[in-house]
């Protein structure tokens, strides 16, 4: 699992990769009420908006950690957006195919991300 400074995670499994938001991100958002899911077949560049997450008083956009094509959005979230609050690392937002796997190297490891969070808190 790799992490971005915008608090997304990405996990490679076989030919696909899964994208979600971190525990820190879901805590910041509070109770999530709606996820505007990504459209399938969408081709996106690293940093493009993948989808949007809404809580009662905020809305946040989720950015692509790497360039790729959306294969599937997690339809389960349509009726149960709270799953992200309950299990942020077990709940993906989109399943994608990565264009260029070397882009993963730009992202943070878990330790690096935790350090990043600590430095942000200061």
């Amino acid at each position, binding site marked *: 699992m790799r992490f971005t400074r915008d608090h997304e995670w990405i996990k490679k499994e076989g030919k696909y990769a899964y994208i979600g938001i971190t525990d820190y991100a879901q805590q910041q958002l509070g109770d999530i009420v709606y996820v*505007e899911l990504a*459209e399938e077949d969408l081709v996106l560049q690293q940093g493009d908006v993948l989808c949007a997450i809404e809580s009662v008083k905020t*809305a946040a956009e989720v950015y692509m950690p790497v360039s790729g094509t959306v294969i599937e959005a997690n339809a389960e979230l349509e009726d149960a957006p709270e799953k992200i609050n309950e299990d942020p690392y077990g709940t993906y937002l989109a399943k994608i195919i990565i264009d260029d796997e070397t882009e993963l190297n730009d992202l943070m490891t878990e330790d690096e991300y935790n350090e990043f969070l600590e430095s942000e808190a200061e």
Partner: protein
Amino acid sequence: MRYIPVTDRDRQEMLKRCKADSVEHLFSCIPEQVRLKRPLNLPPAKSEMELIKYMQSLAAQNSNTGNYACFLGAGAYDHYIPSVISHLISRQEFLTAYTPYQPEISQGTLTAIFEYQTMICELTGMDVANASMYDGASALAEACAISSGAFRKRSDIIIVEDMHPEYRETVETYLKFRDIKYTSMTVKQLLEADLTNVAGVCVQYPSFYGDIYDMQVIGDYVKQNGSLFIVCANPVALALLKSPKDFGADFVVGEGQPLGMPMGFGGPYLGFFACVKEHMRKMPGRIVGKTTDVDGKTAYVLTLQAREQHIRREKATSNICSNQALCALTATIYLSVTGKKGFKQVAQRCVDNAHYVYEGLLKTGKFEKTSDMPFFHEFTVKPKVNIAALNRYLYGHGFIGGLETDRGWLIAVTEKRTKEEMDEFIRRAGEFNG
């Protein structure tokens, strides 16, 4: 100063507490060079008596529909306003409250808006309605903007030509600044148009000239081509006419003024906005939802706020941050007072009166038909005389005549018109020879 209750003595005490030498001291952060060094050039303050006298003198220079029978419509209609409305909407609890951000002390406004949303859904057949918008024209413009953004591969808007010209101009303004392409065409052209790049099609129901189209045919064509169907409806006509839901509307918007608001020289009015569920989270403006409080008591609250400008800022669905709450309340009271039966009676009486006047005018032999289509309470006829002169003649006999349009004289007849007024109007219009 009637509205400033701080006395000179208070002022001194307050300044002391603020550790300021003078009121001037509080303003020391304003640089000299931008200060106004003279009094504002405005008329001297008027006492309440003087104010009333002056405003009465301005009001008296207008010919109002209390003294003149109004046959003018074109987007603002002279309907009867039940007496209870002014009594209820002038209650300070409604009138002097802010937007209901604090639901604990705003259940009055929130409950009324929830009822309003329900009634607008009933009227339009749509799944959801917002808490209202500025007016019919801006509600239409917002519906166009949302439709345009609803697709990945199409974004153009078509406005059918016999849309109210001021609505068309408003939509044009809203769209051109966002670089959204729009075109205008007749219904006939629309039914042959290539809609591949078209996101939304707007049709007025009935049209600006009063025509009632076969909306099913239009709806079918628009849907078959994958575009969204935006219907701009007259709410009173919806009491009788086919529900927009039945012919496939995705958005139903319109001007709510006929629902209990005075014509008021153009405002404030009420833009109603309703749509099918798919677009719920893209709706502009305030929306009220039902929930419970910590004790389990039913209550209402502003909801789906993540769409809005105070959260989404430049990515918000719309920049609107108010609604016409008091006008929405007015409509809610109006629809409660008239109710299921009365509302339909109003609409039917409009139809009866308008057709009586239409037939009467044609019988004078001084007017030509301009359309064979059915109409509700508004129609055009073509006079042989100059319309401005005709209206001036009628004005001399106590009437406010119809609007001059490119298709003729646009006449609206509401339930307020008596047989005497209509007979006299027809007679006077028929006797004028220019």
